[in-house]
């Protein structure tokens, strides 16, 4: 293999593959990246055997071939090279890095020993969506997911794909976020509706390295996921099992409804957080015929505080305690300056949404007071 690459292109590609290296306890080659110059394309791959990232790099191929070298050494050499133009040349099992005035040889391994990245049959079904829309949608729900050994089926994001809409949902059993994207915003050629659960880690990884300006194609077939985004490919397994049916927890009989300024409530929660120690408890209080919501927190050692926010309120007076971090997560993901909070008393789920955008809601369980 012999190729010529510009430094910045190579650096970007290395960054993209840097988080999916394996731990080398069994197989040392998982600490390596594979550099492939085959079929007129240069690609860099890494995998931890759960997820694989393949990133294309622009460059000039003189001789086709491939090499595999340890990521850490290669990355620190490339990171510190000053020249724009870098020549890479395979040398026995390693690679020769050459610029006008610098030369290094890094020991590698046999590229034949690098894991084979599974291919998804492209003829199968996929949907295509604008990168920016996908990024925003996933960001709105990803915070509600949490990895759980006990319940693998909720340690990921649900993709509920129907001909007319796609729903993304996530929950850690204390709160749940759902975002809907409508058919005008994606192209779907799944023949029928399907649901699959994508593990949290590849989603976070994808959000980190994706390019919002290029459309994204998502394939899901036989328990396997492939995301294509320009010259980036991410391959991962899907979580087996069924995402729980969360319809029953969506509040239907709200007893109190509050409409207020989102940013003011966020400010109040941050203030209140100063007076909550480990328990994170913040109390929202609504008295009869009141036009304000009281945000209160106290700690026997630190002191107490209380913040009054003007609000439109209808329904019953109520006092309800929340974990302020959970509340804040929900509010931050609203795409509007106003927030509508619907309560069903102090032990049943509450809902946060905004009348300005019906495509997102966030359900949260209170803390027992």
């Amino acid at each position, binding site marked *: 293999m012999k190729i010529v690459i510009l430094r910045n292109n190579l650096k970007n590609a290395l960054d993209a593959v840097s988080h999916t290296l394996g731990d080398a306890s069994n197989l040392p080659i998982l600490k390596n990246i594979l550099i492939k110059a085959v079929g007129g394309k240069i690609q860099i791959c890494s995998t931890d055997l759960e997820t694989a990232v393949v990133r294309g790099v622009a460059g000039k191929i003189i001789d086709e071939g491939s090499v595999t070298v340890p990521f850490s050494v290669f990355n620190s050499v490339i990171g510190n090279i000053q020249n724009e133009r870098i020549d890479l040349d395979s040398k026995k099992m390693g690679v020769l890095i050459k610029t006008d005035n610098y030369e290094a040889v890094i020991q590698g391994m046999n590229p034949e020993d690098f894991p084979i990245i599974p291919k998804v049959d492209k003829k199968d079904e996929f949907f295509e969506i604008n990168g920016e829309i996908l990024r925003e949608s996933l960001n709105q729900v990803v915070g509600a997911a949490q990895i759980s050994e006990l319940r693998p089926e909720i340690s990921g994001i649900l993709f509920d794909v129907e001909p*007319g809409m796609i729903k993304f949902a996530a929950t850690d059993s*204390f709160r*749940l976020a759902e975002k809907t994207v409508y058919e005008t915003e994606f192209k779907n050629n799944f023949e029928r509706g399907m649901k699959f659960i994508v593990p949290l880690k590849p989603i976070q990884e994808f959000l980190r390295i994706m390019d919002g300006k290029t459309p994204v194609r998502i394939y899901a077939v036989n328990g*396997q996921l492939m995301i294509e985004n320009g010259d980036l490919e991410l391959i991962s397994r899907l979580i087996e099992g069924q995402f729980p049916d*969360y319809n029953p927890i969506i509040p239907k009989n709200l007893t109190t409804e509050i409409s207020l300024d989102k940013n003011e409530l966020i400010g109040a929660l941050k203030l209140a957080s100063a007076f909550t120690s480990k328990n994170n408890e913040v109390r929202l209080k609504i008295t009869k015929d009141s036009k304000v919501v009281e945000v209160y927190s106290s700690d026997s050692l630190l002191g107490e505080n209380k913040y009054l926010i003007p609000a439109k309120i209808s329904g019953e007076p109520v006092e309800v305690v929340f974990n302020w971090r959970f509340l804040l997560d929900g509010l931050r993901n609203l795409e509007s300056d106003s927030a509508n909070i619907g309560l069903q008393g102090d032990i049943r789920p509450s809902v946060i949404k905004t009348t300005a955008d019906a495509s997102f809601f966030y359900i949260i*369980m209170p*803390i*027992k007071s």
Partner: protein
Amino acid sequence: MTIDELWQKALGELELQISRPNFLTWLKNSRLVDSKEGDAIIALPNHFAKEWVEAKYGKIILGILRTEDSCIRKTTYIVDGAITRKPEPQREPEKIEKQLVFNELKSDPESGLNPKYNIKSFVVGSHNELAYAASMSIVDAVGQKYNPFFIYGGTGLGKTHLIQAIGNEIHLKHKGKYKVKYVSSEKFTNDVIWAIRNKRVDDIKQAYRNIDVLIVDDIQFIGGKEKTEEEFFHTFNALHENNKQIIISSDRPPRAIPILEDRLKSRFEGGMIVDISFPDYETRVAIIKVKLQERQENLEDEIVGVIAQKIQRNIRELEGILNKVVFHKTHHAHLFNSPYVEKLMEDIVQQTAQNLTPAQVIKAVAEFYEISMVEITGRGRKKEIVEPRQVAMFLLREMLNMSYPFIAEKMGKRDHTTAIYAYDKINHALNENPSFSQKMVMIKELVNKS
């Protein structure tokens, strides 16, 4: 040689031919699933392992397998994520943590059953003996004995607990042999609506007809939803014809669900119908003790007695009250004794009564009997109007503890002896006539909802 032994042998040889790290990474958790007609099917835990083993060791494996079993001509590789799945972890103990969780999400998505409803925590008393016994024989002989099995009774008396427990028990006892599905009638309705909207009615049909045990909760709510009723009717028939078990719950007997189609009613009546009534005092004490045990809390027998005395009609209500009592016990430990609890209970009982006005009671009764407010308080003496009027007077006395003269005044400026007569008459009827007391339960629920 079994296929497991065959695979063990093959692995033993492979281990000699490839390096140890490679062996551990790629072939740990591999399994020979089947070898029929010369095709050995090998399952691997993920796609990476499948690609690798197939490409790199495919030939070696085929060679080894053939020397052991000459019938094998080829190998097929599949991915089975379940291989690496750890053995089912012990369910988390139900801790009472302050941060509340979505309990509904604990339900098994496949069956819809919530594991918290088990048969062990179901307290059996004279009020539900029959229902319990029938349930147990259904667990033993699924689909053969009582089919359909129809349970009715007021809210909060344990219908949902019992029917879910049947489902869980069938799962346990027959080790997943039967496909159990629990749905509320609301969920069933939503499924039908969704299917119609997305033109996927066949999918729904398919999904519901592949079930061995169908459990439908609160069937009264599908009354009047024509398409849902029809879909349910067909599902019911399809399952029933194939001897699949059907279990249904409702807050009243089939005949008394006003807007349910007749063909459904008669279907429901074709099996076994049992009711769950109110638990007696001893059973209530037992229930409270079970609930306390679940919470790992303790209360003196005297206090348990006080609570059981006060809460007679709704077990679900009991949970909230127990929470409150336990809270007071930890926070006001120095004051905590049975008079204190008695006082606490009075407060709770009054609180619910306080929110109720006489007008609400009368209105709810009128609504139940489908007569107007004018008629119920008017002068008419037709039988259809007299009964509701007397029921209203009875409830004003019992629920709001109002004086007879005041009741008579409210009910259209009558004499107070009329109110006394009405109260006694209804009271008598309640003791004599079980179907009338059933009706009364429904009326009270309506009143409480208003």
